[in-house]
């Protein structure tokens, strides 16, 4: 009985997570904030020792050794601390309600992560506490052409409708290699799904875009007729699966493609060329270092892991030097998480590229700030500390490219959405609230038990607190288990 009670209490407490955000400034006010005495790592304009940042209307109003701050401005003294732009995670699966994979079909472009955003996902808060302010929320990697994707800001405490990054182009997930061909995964009793080879992956993409091109032509012809005044013109039948692919052809939707091996990378670039669209980012791209010149020539971004390897055959040639080598060859590179936990220390993962491949401090920091911003087409808004950009900032207690750096505050749109001191200070109250709730539940349950006891009935026992969580939604775990990201 206690177990059931506990489960109920825990379920209730799930909603308590929201109270983490109660100290955040109400969404409609935009406080004027000055961050003072900080080492400011602007990323694009060098480092300012003992500098200040003035934040107004959610934007960076001034940056420099000193700023003209109004008297009523809220002052954050960052003496001895480091300020960076908010971390941008180019590959995330947080804030998705339910599974990340519509894995039943090989072209699942009808699915859209933007429609299943869950603003209560505690991983939003956890990643915010790791300095992440923007994330590219991707569909899984079970399909050659996967679902539609959305860029969000980690506006913890706000409803799902407020999460999307306004103005950021939507995307679509593609996937190549072992995951879409289901190498490491099969459902007993179900037939093998096409494609089962890298040859088939190419043809799946080619077939879909051939259809999309014809579909687009049909619409273009129809629109032409209409604008020529033809009142008898019949519109083609809407195809929700092909609509997003037409947007890709028209450059209105970015392609973010999961890939590993050099051959499949070049395959996708060829197919894209054939149909006249651009691949915006290659995700994981663990063998990108082998074809770095080709990536640079194609102008495609590369978003990779710091040091994951050997979890499957296509990851056996993965090297921690990947980011640095591609950077040296002129590719715009980012380091992503693909995992809610990994996202909490992307600053550390970026730092590894200094050791593996010799990137400079600035180059390493770019891997998780301005570079992913460029890849997502939002670099005019975020990714560096410059006047006019969104006030998405992280305050660290020391150089963020250290394993000892701890995030002190994270700001989005000029609002402090994570404050470590307040988080720590609020824990006792949360603990008490939890205890009180459990006590209340227990008392209520005891009462109902007594009632039931009168009728000689025993309450059902179910759901203890133990549970095996499925693997976190990162590529390797899910890919082997069936191709998530």
């Amino acid at each position: 009985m206690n177990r059931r009670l506990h489960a109920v209490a825990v379920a209730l407490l799930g909603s308590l997570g929201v109270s983490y955000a109660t100290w955040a400034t109400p969404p409609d006010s935009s406080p004027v904030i000055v961050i003072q005495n900080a080492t400011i790592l602007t990323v694009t304009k060098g480092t300012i020792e003992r500098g200040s940042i003035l934040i107004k209307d959610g934007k960076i109003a001034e940056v420099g050794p000193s700023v003209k701050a109004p008297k009523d401005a809220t002052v954050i003294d960052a003496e001895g601390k480091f300020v960076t732009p908010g971390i941008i995670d180019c590959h995330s699966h947080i804030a998705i309600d339910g599974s990340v994979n519509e894995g039943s079909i090989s072209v699942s472009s009808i699915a859209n992560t933007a429609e299943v955003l869950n603003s209560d996902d505690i991983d939003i808060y956890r990643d915010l506490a790791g300095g992440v302010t923007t994330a590219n929320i991707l569909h899984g990697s079970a399909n050659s052409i996967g679902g539609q994707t959305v860029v969000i800001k980690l506006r913890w405490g706000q409803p799902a409708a407020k999460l999307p990054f306004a103005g950021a182009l939507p995307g679509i997930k593609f996937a190549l290699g072992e995951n879409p061909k289901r190498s490491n995964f099969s459902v007993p009793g179900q037939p093998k799904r096409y494609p089962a080879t890298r040859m088939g992956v190419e043809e799946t993409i080619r077939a879909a875009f051939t259809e999309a091109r014809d579909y687009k032509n049909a619409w273009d012809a129809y629109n032409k007729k209409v604008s020529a005044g033809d009142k008898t013109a019949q519109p083609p039948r809407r195809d929700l699966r092909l609509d997003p692919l037409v947007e890709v052809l028209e450059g209105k939707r970015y392609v973010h493609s999961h890939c590993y091996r050099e051959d499949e990378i070049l395959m996708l670039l060829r197919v894209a060329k054939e149909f006249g669209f651009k691949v915006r980012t290659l995700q994981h791209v663990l063998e990108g270092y082998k074809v770095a010149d080709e990536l640079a020539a194609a102008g495609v971004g590369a978003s990779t892991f710091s040091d994951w390897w050997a979890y499957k055959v296509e990851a056996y040639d993965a090297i921690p030097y990947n980011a640095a080598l591609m950077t040296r060859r002129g590719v715009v590179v980012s380091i992503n998480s693909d995992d809610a936990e990994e996202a909490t220390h992307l600053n550390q993962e970026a730092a590894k590229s200094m050791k593996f491949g010799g990137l400079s401090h600035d180059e390493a920091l770019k891997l998780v700030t301005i570079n992913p911003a460029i890849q997502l087409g939002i670099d005019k808004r975020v990714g560096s500390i410059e006047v006019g950009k969104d006030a998405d900032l992280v305050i660290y207690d020391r150089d963020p490219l250290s394993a000892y750096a701890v995030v002190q505050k994270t700001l989005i749109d000029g609002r402090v959405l994570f404050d470590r001191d307040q988080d720590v200070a609020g824990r006792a109250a949360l603990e008490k609230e939890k205890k009180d709730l459990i006590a209340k539940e227990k008392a209520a349950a005891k009462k109902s038990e007594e009632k039931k006891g009168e009728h000689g009935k025993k309450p059902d026992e179910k759901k203890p607190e133990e549970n095996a969580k499925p693997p976190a939604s990162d590529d390797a775990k899910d890919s082997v288990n069936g191709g998530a990201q």
Partner: protein
Amino acid sequence: MHRATLVAAACFLAGLTAAAQTPQAATTYAITHAKIFTLAGSTIDDGTLVIKDGKIAAVGASVEVPAGAQVIDGKGLQVYPGFFDSVTQMGLSEISAVSSTVDSSETGNFNPDVVAATAVSPSSEHIPVTRASGITEVLAVPASGGFDSSGSRAVLGGQASAFSLAGWTMDDMQIKRSVAMTINFPTVQTRSFDVATFSRRERPYAEAKQEYEKNLNELTDWMDRARHYAQAIGHGGPSDFERDVKLEALAPVVRGQLPVLVFADRARDIRNAVEFCDKQKLKMILAGGSEAYKVKELLRSKNIPVILRPVLTLPTEEDDPYDRLLSQPAELAQAGVKFAIGSFDNSFARRLGQNAANAAAHGLSQDDALKAVTLYPAQILGLSDQVGTLETGKLANVIITNGDPLELTTELKYLFIKGQLTSTDNRHKRLFEKYSNRPKP
């Protein structure tokens, strides 16, 4: 005026490549003028470490450089014992998705007789990759899961083996063949993730409880039978005594000679495990311990050490503080619980130092963070007479760095394993060099 052979740095570095390719006889080395963190007593600011015949021959501020020693000028460098990764699948798993390359988990639920050392592949690419991160010795633990592991987790998983991360054969590498008996402590699990169908599976509590009880009863039964068996062989046994390899493997466990490495994360599972080991008079080491903080008083009072899983792990509960696992080491240290930090992995083993540093960033002392990946695992696993500190007579598993070895950007300058100057070359470096030299197409 010593007669040591002083090798010029340039010559010496040139020799390193050769050393990587050709077998080398044991040589005497002296690392001079280095800052030496012995982890046994205070740090020596300007000291000498002498390595001879695979062992640490001398360490101190005023140690003579022996005749014929190769000298490494350690000025500006720091010397530490190599890291000890105390839970891994090193050498047992190459590519986790390819079952033919994985030997980390035997089938069946009770396999006390299987020994990790038997299946460690000395030519695994993971070994050079891992030692390049400063890890000089590991414990390979059967049935210990690991990143992306879909293998079963037997209740009695088999024997864990400790070895150094260099050598031609397991005989070369082995520190101790049987270090601990793995137990995945039974737990009531209603929700599981089914790998074959990639779906969550739920089952009624009663069913999960039944399986838990069945496993626990069987485990108890194994221990009871092993005890009787151990008594019988202890008395010579009758002439027609039938030997049983599984019970024989458990005999040192029930005698309290071989510790049990008990995997449990939830507080209740830990409590159950402690109770079980108490009753069975087993020498328990807890592994995992995500909620060890909830039972810290119990662990301290029973003197049960813990090998913690990586601190870079999300909390168990949604409403746990976001840094719950990061701050746990500091909390355990304060409570007087002995612990080490392990990678619990193979391809992520090289994040061991990063994990220790993150624990330090969340309140653990720098000294304890370093010891959690050197001395403490050695002590917990009963191997501190051989590894874990820089003391005379211990295995010369030594790392020489240009800074804090836990920090992400610190470089490993020299690596000694069993007294051999060991190359930090590995698959990743080779691929990097190969493709760095790819001509422009």
